[in-house]
């Protein structure tokens, strides 16, 4: 059991972590138990923020456009995933003002997505996006992907505290979080194929 102040029980050594990841990606329970907490299934609200949290935030995606000027991309889902480290939220604004989000984008209604596309998303075998199972009744009919290619820096005060603008929708269970963390490492550390045979 997690002790006081801990989010989850301790993570053991590297070998244990690798075994856990392999088990998760081959386990049908992962999707059912992806979220340990959902707003639509609970009367208890969380005011803190953790890596992997799904948020609703009424913002488009800020980007730099092809002319080098700042702009935005439409984001009608208004759904975001926190990819900044949880420990960043324990630090003061003076020491760590920013954290990072990625938009969660609908890849279409499940009725329009082919089984091949759905399987490709669910296997976690592609590095640039992260499959996110439905986190509310409203999202159950769609395939959602967190887009790692559109990371956004956000002032932490948007996400927590008296001035927050975001609403926490769902929090990952430990297994999903371990998988997310590994997928983030894989994205940042992937090779560019220059040494391919």
């Amino acid at each position, binding site marked *: 059991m*997690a*002790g006081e*102040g*801990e*989010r*989850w029980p*301790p*993570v*053991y*050594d*590297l*070998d*244990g*972590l*690798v075994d856990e*990841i*392999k088990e998760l*990606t081959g386990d049908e329970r992962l999707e059912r138990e992806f979220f340990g907490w959902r707003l639509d299934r609970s009367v208890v609200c969380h005011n803190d923020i953790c890596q992997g949290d799904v948020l609703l935030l009424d913002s488009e995606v*800020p*980007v730099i*456009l092809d*002319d080098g*000027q*700042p*702009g*935005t*991309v*439409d*984001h009608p889902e208004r759904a975001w995933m926190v990819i900044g*480290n949880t*420990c*960043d939220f*324990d*630090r003061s604004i003076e020491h760590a003002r920013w954290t990072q989000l990625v938009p969660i*984008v*609908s*890849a*279409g209604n499940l009725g329009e*997505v082919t089984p*091949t*596309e759905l399987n*490709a*998303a669910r*296997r*976690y*075998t*592609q*590095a*640039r*996006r992260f499959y996110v199972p439905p986190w509310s009744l409203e999202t159950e009919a769609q395939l959602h*992907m967190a*887009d790692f290619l559109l990371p956004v820096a956000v002032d932490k005060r948007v996400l927590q505290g008296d001035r927050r603008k975001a609403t926490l929708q769902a929090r990952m269970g430990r297994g999903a979080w371990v998988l997310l*963390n*590994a*997928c*983030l*490492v*894989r994205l940042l*550390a*992937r090779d560019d194929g220059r040494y391919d045979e």
Partner: protein
Amino acid sequence: MPSDFGFAFVGLMSGQVGGVPTARARQVLGYSEVASSETPLPVGFRPVSLLGARTGTLLVGERLVGKSSEPERLVTGSLRYVEAIASALPIDKEDERIIDELMAKRTAGRATRPLRRREGEPL
């Protein structure tokens, strides 16, 4: 599998340094340890968790040829971590192509808008 055994140093009659198996505490990294520290590294990424469980062979080797520097150990540990993640989460290029095409198709119509222009530049 993780081992709960390490090696203790012993002096051999030949004057060399050897190691004998001995029980040791398992290396455990608590999430709270990371959360309460100033490090931005994720769980499992701290050098202590990667390099603490060194083998007896490596420990004896360090005695003979000298210890590696902290940056060297950090790089070695980080590479080992990334290699392990890569082996546990292999990338399938065909799946990447399928998802890239799907996302491109679904998001192609999304509008982009400039936030501002520098003074004097046309909109």
